[in-house]
């Protein structure tokens, strides 16, 4: 089997040169964050998926399941983040059967980075991977080309600068669960309100030793405020205001000049 087939790439390039507009793909504009607190890891994400200037999904899920003790936030092309996290989650499951042990975060990290590296950045997935295993809590960022960082707090996506400014000013080591959740919610909200590519709601996932809590839609700071109470009603008849008839074909008068043709 092996590998992505790049056969159609030349044909796509040729079509673009000929003037065809390439269809855009669904991106998760996104603000995703993670931080390590006293008892484990907290991951956070917004819920807006964009297709160019259009909001394609107002409440998508960006925090993906990898293992019972490991979750991964994804930014970049939505299909890429979904597919790559699904695939590595499958492989981790098989690995757990074979070894009889809980999955380690570094295992997920290595699988993801080697996959992304082998596709040389064409799989556009930027991930924040966090979890708690037998060696303790871990938090990593993974870039589309396959490089990784290990950090106490991390942000990715178009809203990462807004979120990072919150973390840089307020992060402390050894925060409690409630402090950590509050800070993550603040960072994501900062991305939601200051970045166009991020919006809607805040999702949070808290992972500690032996337990994880997926707090879907933890905050809903963008509810639909104005909804007409009366509802909308349209009358069945359309009222005729004005009638004008324009014939499509001109009525032409033919005036015979001269004699008919003589052979």
């Amino acid at each position: 089997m092996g590998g992505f087939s790049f056969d159609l790439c030349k044909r796509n390039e040729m079509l673009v040169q000929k003037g065809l507009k390439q269809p855009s793909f669904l991106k998760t504009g996104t603000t995703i964050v993670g931080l390590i607190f006293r008892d484990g890891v907290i991951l956070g994400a917004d819920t807006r998926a964009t297709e160019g200037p259009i909001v394609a999904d107002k409440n998508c899920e960006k925090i993906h399941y990898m293992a019972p003790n490991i979750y991964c936030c994804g930014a970049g092309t939505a299909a890429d983040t979904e597919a790559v996290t699904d695939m590595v989650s499958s492989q981790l499951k098989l690995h757990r059967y074979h070894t009889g042990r809980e999955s380690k975060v570094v295992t997920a990290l290595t699988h993801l980075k080697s996959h992304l590296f082998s596709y040389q950045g064409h799989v556009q997935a930027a991930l924040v991977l966090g979890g708690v295993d037998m060696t303790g809590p871990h938090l990593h960022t993974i870039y589309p080309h396959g490089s990784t960082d290990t950090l106490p707090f991390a942000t990715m996506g178009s809203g990462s600068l807004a979120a990072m400014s919150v973390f840089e000013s307020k992060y402390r080591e050894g925060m409690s669960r409630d402090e950590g959740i509050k800070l993550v919610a603040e960072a994501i909200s900062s991305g939601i309100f200051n970045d166009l590519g991020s919006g809607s709601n805040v999702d949070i996932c808290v992972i500690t030793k032996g337990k994880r809590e997926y707090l879907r839609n933890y905050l809903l700071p963008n509810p639909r405020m104005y909804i007409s109470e009366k509802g909308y009603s349209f009358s069945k008849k359309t009222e005729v205001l004005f009638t004008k008839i324009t014939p499509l074909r001109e009525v032409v008068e033919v005036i015979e000049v001269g004699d008919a043709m003589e052979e």
Partner: protein
Amino acid sequence: MGDSQYSFSLTTFSPSGKLVQIEHALTAVGSGQTSLGIKAANGVVIATEKKLPSILVDETSVQKIQTLTPNIGVVYSGMGPDSRVLVRKSRKQAEQYYRLYKEPIPVTQLVRETATVMQEFTQSGGVRPFGVSLLVAGFDDKGPQLYQVDPSGSYFSWKASAMGKNVSNAKTFLEKRYTDDMELDDAVHTAILTLKEGFEGQISSKNIEIGVIGSNKIFKVLTPSEIEDYLQEVE
């Protein structure tokens, strides 16, 4: 025996219409340690002898009953290494099915795919059939199920079955004892008694293995202390 001329090549039929290599594989299974399975009204139990070659072997490191998916388990009779290969392939197939259809694989599907693998090894060049028969126990939305898969790739659904050394005695015993409305706990007791029938030496929680799946649809291999509890109830 006229057949012996045709017993060297797997992919050649003998004049009597048999594939002699598969017959030999079944003989290998028949000389393996006894294993059995019983389908109860609300679950399935599978069990096997765990006779180790020497008292020096660390019995906690040996596990013959394996989990394929959270709701399907398997036990074998015959060659252990062959069963490991099949277990690995089956787990991968179950995972691939889940990735494609986003639903847990039904028991019949997994059995069919495993049987297909075993059949492929009876019709390919340069390979030999697997020297194991498998008993697959599972619980899905069609209820509790027990399947036996043979080296030829044929599979059968059973209410109760046994394989290995003591198969005929065990099956006679099961035929007498089996009832359709058996509860899971009764089935475990019956399984232990069946194993005891042909057991050489003293049966204990260290030389048998039992796997159960109940209405919670989670396959579990019993710990030695849990087996000890059941053994005491049976005595």
